[in-house]
């Protein structure tokens, strides 16, 4: 079994694990963690595709590898925005839940925000 096939299987399993965490864990921070694991599984699949594209003296196809670098940076900024939102939500409500308790309680503040 080559490293690439092994990495492909690992990537697929990571996607499954991340998906499970995203679906079942109620805590937003754990959902964010699961999203990151899901994402890294997807990146690994790019990695195996790059490895299978070894040609012309390169050990791997650089195009998908470059896409992964872009993807990692985007995933980080997504994590940062989500974590900051979550911390702010906690600061306001002392809770961290996505269930909108009473969305109709105070309607929006119009455009004067």
């Amino acid at each position: 079994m080559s490293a690439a096939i092994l990495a492909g299987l690992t990537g697929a399993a990571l996607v499954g694990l991340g998906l499970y965490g995203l679906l079942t864990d109620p805590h937003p921070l754990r959902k964010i963690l699961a999203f990151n694991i899901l994402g890294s599984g997807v990146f690994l699949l790019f990695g195996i595709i790059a490895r299978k594209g070894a040609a012309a003296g390169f050990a791997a196809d650089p195009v998908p590898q470059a896409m992964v670098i872009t993807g990692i940076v985007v995933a980080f900024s997504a994590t940062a925005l989500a974590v900051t939102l979550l911390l702010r939500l906690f600061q306001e409500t002392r809770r961290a839940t996505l269930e909108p308790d009473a969305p109709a309680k105070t309607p929006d503040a119009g455009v004067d925000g």
Partner: protein
Amino acid sequence: MSVIQALDIGLALLVLAVAGWTIAAREAFASVVGYVAYGLLLSLVWVRLFAVDVALTEAAIGSGVTGVLLISAVVRLRKTEAPAAAERPGVVLRALAAALCTVVAAALAAVVLLMPDPGATLAPEAGQHLGELGVGNPITAVLIAYRSFDTMLEKVVLILAVIGVWSLASDGNWGGVAGPRRGARPEGALAFLAQLLPPLGIVVAIHIVWVGANEPGGAFQGGAILAAMALIVLMARLTEAPEIRRRWLRLALIAGPAVFLVVGIAGFAIPGSFLAYPAGWAKPLILLIEAFMTLSIAATLPMLVIGPPDRPPS
């Protein structure tokens, strides 16, 4: 089975075990610690896939900077774990979710295994133009030349994320020092490290950006190391974070995409195409863009980690 193969399998199992721990751990803190270890192990997998550039990015950003962000968040959110645990779906739902995820993972594994090997590739095309670009690292060529539009937009994504994070400040604190108010000065050991490490880190970062043209490395990896240095200095409270209203901070944030755009628009005039480099000028222009991208990334990442300002401007 060779030793290398056994090591590969061991590494894969370890990665999966730590990922499973991250998902299943009872306490969120343990889960975050697991995630940081997971990121480091994953970088080893990337090395095994002949993707050293990705391994560096994963270790620096995916594991390192993300780890700092998550650990500081999990400590502040400790009180919310028990109420959230009560919302956990029942066994039946979880079993259903597990079944669904298993099916997806199995299908994905099958699809990936069935893909042709050697598969479709752009490696020959990517390699063909390295000479005219004057760079030896094909990944740098993809990021700063062939698909430079992606890279430029991705930096805009980072800036929008900073604006999004800042927008979560309260009105009165707008313009103030970025990040939460910190308590007492931490112990001497951290301050010692924060004085010793940055000079070394800056040298390493510049080295990584510089060699990035020909070897693994580049703006993202180097910028992430600089960002880590900034974060250590901030954590040791050797200096305050800048106020977000500062013009120089904002210039540093946008420098990368701005230089990218200027070079790109100049391309309209000289080689005749947006984002194209004039013959013979590719290498210096790529280095120029990389330098400013590094600066912008080094400014952006700490802003995303430390969060919105928590006190009014002075």
